[in-house]
């Protein structure tokens, strides 16, 4: 038996390989060594983890290079680098979500945060809440209303235009030159910086209605410029994958083209279109820069998108951080800003999940 084992170890197929338990041994020893080193220079959990990972990767690659040869060692080095880069990438992203969560929860749980506006909340109120411990007043109701109304109007503009364009591109254009121009311009539009879209809307309405026109509707137009290309792209992809047999069957029954599109093509693709639109909404609801230059700032509830300045969640966060309500005691403003940020992230996440759900729920029924 013993001879058999040694025989197998010498076999040409298994020669020059590290035993399977090697990585575990290296991992355990590098954790211990890192702990010892950290104990010398002052213990820190984060530093310990980093040091262990570096030690583990180095030992793994070196041992492989000594026993298994250069090719295997290169492979292990690449694996270490890829996994390491992934972990490094996770750090800031986890940190962002953690920071928003920790700082946002107290504000979000403050009674009245969702149901009051900033109307009447002055620096004196904030100073009192810092000095006397009275609850932090003021909330995001006005910003929430503004965000929803502006996004709603942007959707009302973008969805018909975007969907009809997609229909033109897929059903009517037959790949002519005009459709190529549109496709190219839609691609270009996808890359317009959001602030430029805001400037466009501001400049446009400044020329029509006089300089300084800032309303919710101007903001909605700015957001539409950002939203239309997203809607076109996603709807186009969805219309393209509708099987041609369905269209041909409808034509064979004598159905007209527009009826075929309305009754056959769109219902088949509606799940994808709806989820694309939801993702587009999720993208524009967090846009800040175009709203800064088009909708202005407000502390009161404004239900009318056609008149008066309007607040929105992203600009609310921005103004609370940049210009705290009470310059000497910024803490209540910071708390409101973080709570609004948490609320905004939750909204965006819900919209994303909703898009997935919509895609699944309205998926066309397969025959059986």
């Amino acid at each position, binding site marked *: 038996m013993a001879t058999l084992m040694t025989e197998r170890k010498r076999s040409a197929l298994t020669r020059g390989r590290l035993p399977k338990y090697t990585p575990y041994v290296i991992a355990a020893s590098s954790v211990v060594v890192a702990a010892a080193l950290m104990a010398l220079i002052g213990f820190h959990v984060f530093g310990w983890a980093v040091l262990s990972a570096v030690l583990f990767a180095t030992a793994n690659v070196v041992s492989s290079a000594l026993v298994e040869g250069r090719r295997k060692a290169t492979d292990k080095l690449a694996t270490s680098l890829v996994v390491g880069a992934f972990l490094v990438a996770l750090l800031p992203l986890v940190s962002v979500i953690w920071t928003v969560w920790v700082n946002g929860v107290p504000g979000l749980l403050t009674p009245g945060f969702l149901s009051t506006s900033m109307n009447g909340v002055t620096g004196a109120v904030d100073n009192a809440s810092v000095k006397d411990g009275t609850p932090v007043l003021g909330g995001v109701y006005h910003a929430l209303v503004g965000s929803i109304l502006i996004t709603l109007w942007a959707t009302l503009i973008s969805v018909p235009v975007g*969907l009809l364009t997609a229909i033109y591109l897929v059903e009517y254009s037959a790949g002519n030159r005009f459709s190529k121009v549109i496709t190219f311009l839609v691609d270009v539009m996808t*890359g317009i*910086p959001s602030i430029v879209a805001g400037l466009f809307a501001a400049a446009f309405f400044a*020329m029509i209605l006089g300089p300084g026109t800032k309303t919710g509707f101007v903001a909605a137009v700015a957001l539409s410029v950002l939203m239309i290309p997203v809607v*076109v792209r996603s709807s186009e992809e969805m219309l393209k994958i509708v099987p041609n047999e369905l269209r041909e069957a409808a034509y064979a029954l004598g159905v007209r083209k527009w009826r075929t599109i309305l009754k056959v093509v769109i219902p088949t693709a509606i799940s994808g279109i709806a989820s694309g639109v939801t993702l587009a909404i999720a993208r524009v609801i967090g846009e800040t*820069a175009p709203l*800064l230059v088009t909708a202005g700032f407000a502390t009161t509830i404004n239900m009318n998108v056609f008149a008066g300045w309007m607040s929105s969640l992203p600009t609310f966060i*921005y103004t609370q951080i940049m210009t705290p309500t009470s310059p000497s005691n910024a803490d209540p403003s910071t708390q409101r800003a973080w709570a609004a*940020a948490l609320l905004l992230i939750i909204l965006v996440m819900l919209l994303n999940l909703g898009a997935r759900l919509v895609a699944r729920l309205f998926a066309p029924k397969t025959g059986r």
Partner: protein
Amino acid sequence: MFSGAALGAGALIVAVLFAVALFLVVQALPTFSANPADITGGRGFFDYIFPIVVGTLIAATIALLIATPIGVAVALFTSHYAPRRLARGLGYVVDLLAAIPSVVYGAWGASYLASQLKVPYAWLAENFGWIPLFAGPASGTGKTILTAGIVLAVMVLPIIASLTREIFLQAPMLHQEAALALGATRWEMIRMAVLPFARGGIISAVMLGLGRALGETMAVALVLSSGPLIASLIRSGNQTIAAEIALDFPEAFGLRMHELIAAGLVLFLITLVVNMVARWIINRHKEFSGAN
């Protein structure tokens, strides 16, 4: 009539894009005809725009230098390294992260990251101060162009990662299996069968990330304490076009407003070129990727 409506919608998009360019040009014109002494800085539009164009490019370059290798590695991890079941969930998480609003990243950068980076900056200024990029004294708040660049990197990373992941997943399976069957290690397989296929896709993903980093406003506006153009990355100073517009436009009027719109036009042209090059690379790549 329905086809007319569809055509009209398509034409509207063309019109909107031309309108964007047209209105920006028309509103920017007064800047160019104005007396150079009246422009901010007092020496004409070029002297005004040059520092903030350079600032924009610096911030975007820092962002890409950090985000490109890490983003590609993250994409490789989700497409070729992670266990299959984990990979799907990770892809979803990366997409969600790409959807976090920029103002949130900006708030995080301003309140958390900047204060964390004060100590490293001071160390850099002390030990590497002889390099102009790290000339001291380091900023006392950490709100520097390097911090802004790092925040931008965090923002474009999910975009680069999710775009390149799509390309990596499309790499022809047969080539990969053939490489493995010939005895290639995983890394050799990736280098021979995946990366050559994905080169165009990676470049265009990076270009799209660049477009995003150039036009990103809020992260820079919140994170950077701006100032005149300086070489040091760890002192407060520098400014980007987008942040300049966001900070000053709400209170701007008259010539200052036209000036900012002209700055927006410059930004629009820069991103337009970047995006067109990216699309051109994608389209060229499409024709040659006949791997199947």
